[in-house]
Structure formats: C-alpha cells, structure tokens
C-alpha cells in the first residue's frame, strides 16, 4: 500500500506550521513554570525544540510547492496529511488491538508523533518478520514495533536515536528462591525458549538450560513448578507483573543482555523524517513524555528514568544531541561475519532447493559465530568421548580388581559403591558429580567436562568392573573343580583370563559410555548438543540443526563400535598367538 500524495494548499500549510510552533513552545513555557528547571542549552538556537520547529517549517514550505514529486518521506507525509506507523497488535502492554481499538505504550508514542507533525496517524499492523520489509517496500513511514537496535538491522533500516525503550533478558523465580547473579548461576536449571539470543551467555555461565517453544509455556511451567527459574525478555514479563498474584509470588533475580529499542524509518528517503523523530525523542525524554506514557502502561521505568537524566544534560539537550555519542546508546553488536565457505553452503542450499525441492537452513555453516560454536562443540564432544572411554576402562580395571580382592573389608564397600552407581539414574549421577565439583572449584567448561568424564567413567566402569569380577569368580571356581590341568594359575594370570572372558561386557559398557556423553550437556559441558542448542539463536531452521546433531552422534557411536570390534579382534588374535 502506498501513501496517497496530494498537494497541500499554502493556507493549510501555514496553519499547520503555526500549530507546530505553538505546540513546541508550550512544553518550554510549562517547564519554565516548574522548579527545578532543567538545564537549557547554551544557545536557544541549538535547542532541539527550535531545531525541530525549523526542520518542520522547511518541510512544510517544501510541501507547499512539491507535493507532486515529494523530495523526502517527511514532505510526502505532510503532503498526505497522514503518517503510516507500523505497530504490533499482540504485544501487551506495548501494542495490542482489541474490541476497544489499539492501545499500549507504542501506540501512545505513535499518536504523539502524529500530533507533533500535525497529521493524522494511520496505524498499520506489522510483525517482527515483516516490520523492516514494510519500511523498505513503502507500506509504512515509521515502525515502532518492539524492534531492538542491532548493528545487523542498522544496515536494513534507519534507526532513531535516542531509543524510546530498552529491554533485557530477565531471569524470574519465586521470591523464596535464593538471590542469584550471572556469576552464581552455574549448576542451576533455567527454562528458556529455543533460539533466544541470551542462551549462549547463560550456558557459558554454567546454567542448565531447559528448552521450551514459547514464552507463554515458560510461565506455565513456572506456575506448575516444573521450572524454578525462567528467562525471557523483561518486556514480555511486564504484563504478568501487573497481576498482583504473579507479583506476590515471583521477582526478577537479575537481568542480562540489555538491548535498546528504536523506531526506524526507511533508509532511502527517510533521513529528514529520521532527524525530526530523533529531535522529538530528545524532547520526549527530556520532558518526561516517554516516562509518563510508560508509567501509564505499567512498564518498567529504570531505563527511561536514566535516559531522562541524560537528556536533561546541557551537552545532550541540544539540536545535535542525537548525534552525540556521549548521549545516545550505540546499537547492540550483532555482526554476523560470514564463514569462508558461506558461498559454497549457499550453492548447496540452492542445489537442494532446485533439484530436490528441499529447503534446508544451514546458517550454522554460514555465520562465523555459529560455526565457531559448532566447531568448539565437536572438539569438546570428541574430548569427552575419548576421556570417557579412558576413564571407563580405568575404573573397570580398578573396580574389577577391588571386587575380586580376598579381603572383605575392601571388597564389600566397593560392592556397595557399585550397587549405588547401578541404582542411580545416570542424569542424577552427573548432577551430583557436577555439584560436588562446583562446590570445590569455580565453574568452568573444563570442570564440567572433567566431572562428566569421571561420572560416566564411574557408572560404566562400575558395571564393567563387576563383569570382570564375576568372570574372575567363575575362573576361580573352575580352578577348584577337578580335573585340574596343569599348575594352578597365579592371581595375575587369572585376572588376565578374567579380562578376556569379560571382554564382550567391557566393550558393551564402553559403547554405553559413548552413548551417554551427550548427557554431559545437562551439567553445562559445552559439547555439540549444547553448542547446537546455542547456535539455534543464529539459525531459523532448527530441523536441519538437530538432524546434523543426530547424524554426528550416531556416527561417533558407530565408529566407537567399529573400533571396539577391531580392538577385540586384534586382542583375541594376540592372546591366541601368545
């Protein structure tokens, strides 16, 4: 949909100009009456109010003469007498549409902007998926739709700074839950949504992430008691905290990843409109307009309170304040450098789409941060598999020996340990190992991997050790049964024979140990499963990501099975020859 551009009559333009100058002067006089008065810029000419009035006056003059071919988006708006603002319709308390019409913080801002420009405000529904496309296609003039200002989006739309709000990821839990920070989150379970940009940071801090599909599900799980802690954008929780029951039960434990939200105009012809909106935002911050609108919609005020203090400062409350790096916040860094082989991946995707009709999302191979995560995940998974195989073998030999000792004093406690390991679900054993390790050392990925190697080695090594001891016991019994052939075997020879007899069980427990390694992700070990879960915040296609994960692990297990088979064959041949 394009704007209906019609020429504005000089009389109408003049009246509008008068209205704007009066409306801009009103807040100045109102402020003058209040004490304490904010600091004013050194020169009245450099105030944002005067700069905005001048900018709009120029645009009106232009609109009076060139509405047939408007030179800028601002002129086109003035010519049309209407500004089309893209807003959301389902994100309370920011923007909702119900039987009574539209309401919310962003709706109120949109209406203020229309009033300041002296034009009608036409609200157009947009979604996170099409809000930037709607700008580029000229369907809307401005978007005010819960959009975070990131370096990636900066190249797709012209963001207005100062920002009108900022969100961050809030970790919510019961009021009775112990106080937490990002540093003390290691070993705790947090329920998150798949693809959330804060997942990698929380996982890096050692939190166990439980994945859910939607934010609403997180709240359900918090209420049902399945999740003790949930993480989501704090703006999402805003509406829940308006509910007295929710407020009495839960509180924000801490927040991470602040993200400033910005209005945006089109890149092509939106420069003049962007300047006008930036000046308006300065004024709205300084005069507490944003703050009052947020208060009216029961939003968190900390960001806006802090911003008001900034825009009351002499150096910021100026015509060029919105270009001053000491006043405006930079966009959130989200640069996605491409991998060296991104072109080849693109070609593969195109080939699959054209030849086989398959739409496969392979962003994890195209974006460098995602690829780095995957590469590290593969490396850690292989370390984990190798370490677990070694520890399983070592514990098997050790426990097998201990269970075969003649002394009951040593044998019985070991038997108790093995029984304990056998009757504890493996996930619980891993959690216990990780908790004990975290109590002694500070959480790190190396610690998580080491704890997993030890726990998985103990569980499977315990079972294999029992198999060795049973084989040894059967050999001892056979030794005592007549007829005895040759001299009785020494303990060492018996042990070697027992190993040979129990080799099938040892191999099967080694394979079991390999299959159990992905469980280490539950205690924060940064292996491939964890890495791929984190990488879903870069990729829109979860299916391809999880297919790759399944193929990787099945291949790893098959390789271990093959190695075990070969080793057994070679060992048998060697022993037979000996």
């Amino acid at each position, binding site marked *: 949909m394009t704007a209906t551009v019609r020429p504005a009559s000089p009389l109408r333009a003049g009246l509008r100009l008068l209205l704007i100058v009066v409306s801009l002067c009103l807040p100045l006089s109102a402020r003058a009456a209040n004490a304490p008065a904010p600091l004013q810029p050194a020169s009245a000419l450099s105030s944002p109010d005067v700069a905005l009035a001048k900018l709009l006056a120029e645009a009106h003059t232009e609109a009076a003469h060139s509405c047939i071919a408007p030179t800028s988006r601002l002129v086109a708006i003035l010519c049309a007498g209407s500004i089309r603002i893209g807003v959301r319709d389902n994100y309370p308390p920011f923007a909702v549409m119900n039987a009574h019409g539209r309401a919310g913080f962003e709706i109120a801002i949109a209406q203020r902007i229309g009033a300041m420009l002296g034009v009608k405000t036409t609200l157009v529904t947009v979604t996170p998926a099409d809000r930037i496309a709607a700008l580029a296609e000229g369907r809307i003039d401005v978007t005010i739709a819960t959009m975070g200002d990131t370096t990636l989006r900066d190249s797709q739309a012209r963001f207005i700074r100062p920002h009108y709000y900022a969100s961050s990821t809030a970790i919510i839990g019961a009021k009775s839950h112990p106080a937490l920070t990002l540093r003390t989150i290691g070993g705790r379970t947090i329920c998150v949504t798949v693809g959330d940009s804060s997942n990698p940071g929380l996982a890096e801090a050692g939190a166990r992430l439980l994945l*859910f599909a939607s934010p609403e599900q997180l709240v359900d799980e918090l209420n049902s008691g399945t999740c003790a802690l949930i993480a989501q954008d704090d703006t999402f929780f805003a509406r829940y905290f308006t509910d007295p029951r929710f407020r009495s039960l839960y509180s924000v434990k801490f927040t991470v990843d602040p993200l400033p939200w910005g209005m945006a105009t089109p890149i092509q012809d939106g420069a003049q409109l962007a300047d006008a909106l930036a000046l308006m935002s300065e004024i709205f911050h300084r005069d507490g307009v944003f703050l009052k609108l947020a208060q009216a919609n029961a939003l968190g005020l900390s960001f806006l309170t802090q911003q008001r203090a900034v825009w009351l400062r002499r150096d910021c409350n100026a015509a060029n304040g919105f270009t001053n790096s000491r006043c405006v916040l930079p966009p959130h860094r989200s640069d996605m450098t491409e991998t060296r082989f991104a072109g080849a991946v693109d070609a593969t995707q195109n080939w699959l789409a054209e030849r086989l009709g398959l739409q496969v999302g392979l962003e994890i191979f195209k974006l460098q941060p995602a690829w780095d995560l995957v590469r590290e995940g593969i490396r850690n998974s292989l370390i984990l598999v190798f370490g677990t195989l070694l520890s399983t073998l070592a514990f098997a030999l050790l426990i097998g020996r201990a269970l075969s000792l003649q002394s009951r004093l040593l044998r019985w406690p070991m038997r108790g340990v093995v029984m304990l390991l056998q*009757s504890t679900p493996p996930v*619980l054993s891993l959690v216990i190992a990780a908790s004990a390790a975290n109590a002694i050392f500070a959480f790190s990925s190396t610690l998580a991997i080491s704890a997993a190697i030890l726990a998985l080695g103990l569980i499977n090594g315990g079972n294999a050790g029992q198999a060795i001891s049973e084989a040894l016991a059967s050999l001892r019994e056979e030794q005592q049964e007549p007829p005895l052939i040759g001299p009785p075997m020494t303990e060492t020879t018996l042990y070697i024979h027992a190993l040979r007899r129990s080799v099938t069980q040892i191999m099967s427990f080694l394979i079991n140990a390999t299959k159990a390694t992905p469980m280490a992700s*539950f205690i924060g070990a940064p292996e491939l499963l964890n890495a791929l879960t984190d990488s879903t915040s870069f990729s829109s296609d979860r*299916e391809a990501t999880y297919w790759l994960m399944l193929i990787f692990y099945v291949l790893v297990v098959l390789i271990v099975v093959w190695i075990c088979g070969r080793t057994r064959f070679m060992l048998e041949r060697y022993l037979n020859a000996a």
Partner: protein
Amino acid sequence: MPPHLTLGFFSDLLIGMGRDFWMAAMALVMGCSLGAPLAIVWALRGPIRLLPNAIVQLLRAAPTFVVMFFLLNILPHRITIFGNDIVISRQFTVALSLLPYSASVIAESAAEALRHWRVGSHLAALLLLPNLARIYFVLVMSSGSAAAIGVHEGISSILRQADQFQAIGDRLWVFAIGVLGYGLILQTGFIGVQKLRSHLAAQVTRRRRPSDLTESSKINGG
C-alpha cells in the same frame, strides 16, 4: 544435619517417579510393537535377516539423550490422525526417545525366544519375561533424562528441591534421598527379575527333554 524438607517434596518425588515408570511403560509397549515384527523377520532364515539386523544396529547407535532433543525439536506439538487432534506431550516425546533402545533390545530378546519356541524349548523362550522386566527397569533409569527437557518427573523434583538450597551439604542430602528412593525401587525390581530368571532357568533345566538338548545345541551353534 539434614535440611528441612517438606512433605510436599516427598509427595512430589513420588509422583515424579511414578511419571518415570509411566514413561518407561509407554516406551516398553512401543518397543514391543516395533521390536516384535523385527524379531519375527530376524528369526527367519535367509538374507532377509540382514534387514532387521541392520535396523537394530542403527537403533542401538542412537543415544537416547540426543534422540530426545532431536524429537523435541522436530516433532510438531499437535498432529491429526484420522481427524483426531493429538497433542504430543513432552512425556510422550521422552517415551518415543527411549524407543530405539527398547525396540532394539526387545527385538534381540524376542528373536532368541522365538528360536527357542520353534524348537520346542518353551520354558527357555519364557526367559523373555524376565528380560522384558530388566529392560523396563533400565528404561525407568533412562527416563530420568526427561528432566533435561522440563518434564515434571522424579529427577526434576530432586533438582528443583536442591536448587532451593545454597549449601552443598543440604543439596547433597536431597540427592541422597533421591538416590535412596530410586535405589530401593530399582534394586527390589532387579532382585525380582533375578528371582524370576532363576525360577524359569530351574524349570528349564528340570523339564528339558533330550530333544531340547539337541535343538538347543543347534541354536547355540554347537
């Protein structure tokens, strides 16, 4: 000193453990449904046997934990079968993730039982029952992984309670209670399986006829 634990925790733990048993039961039933046809084909003679063998090897190589995350992300939350809307719950997803393991071991045990049955060694074939019971208890242990995807089961009850405490000593107490709870039930189960196996084995030995012995030797490659 043990930490103060409410009655709510113990009832929560019991309900959660009940869910583990329920998920394991679902996995066992599904495993039987898939494992039985595999076993039948496997028990046949000729090259057709290679097919179930390959399938079982592949199923065995799939780690349960990975399959669980895979299914969680691949399966739709709701499917329509014959016009009926079916919600795929997380519990069902966990049961489904245990299917590769249960189907492969059931196929193996059932194929062996079929071979025994075919040669008239009925009691030896009945050893499938204790095998199924053992598989069931292994499935109960494995269903604890469901805590990783937010299923409200035994392990998640333990973890939630442990998260309420700051001191490692208190948390270890909670873990110890969990280990005891699972240990008691599982060890009792394993002892029961052992008894059933011994009883059936004794029956096999007592009732074994000369023809059985000959055929059994054939089966064992003797």
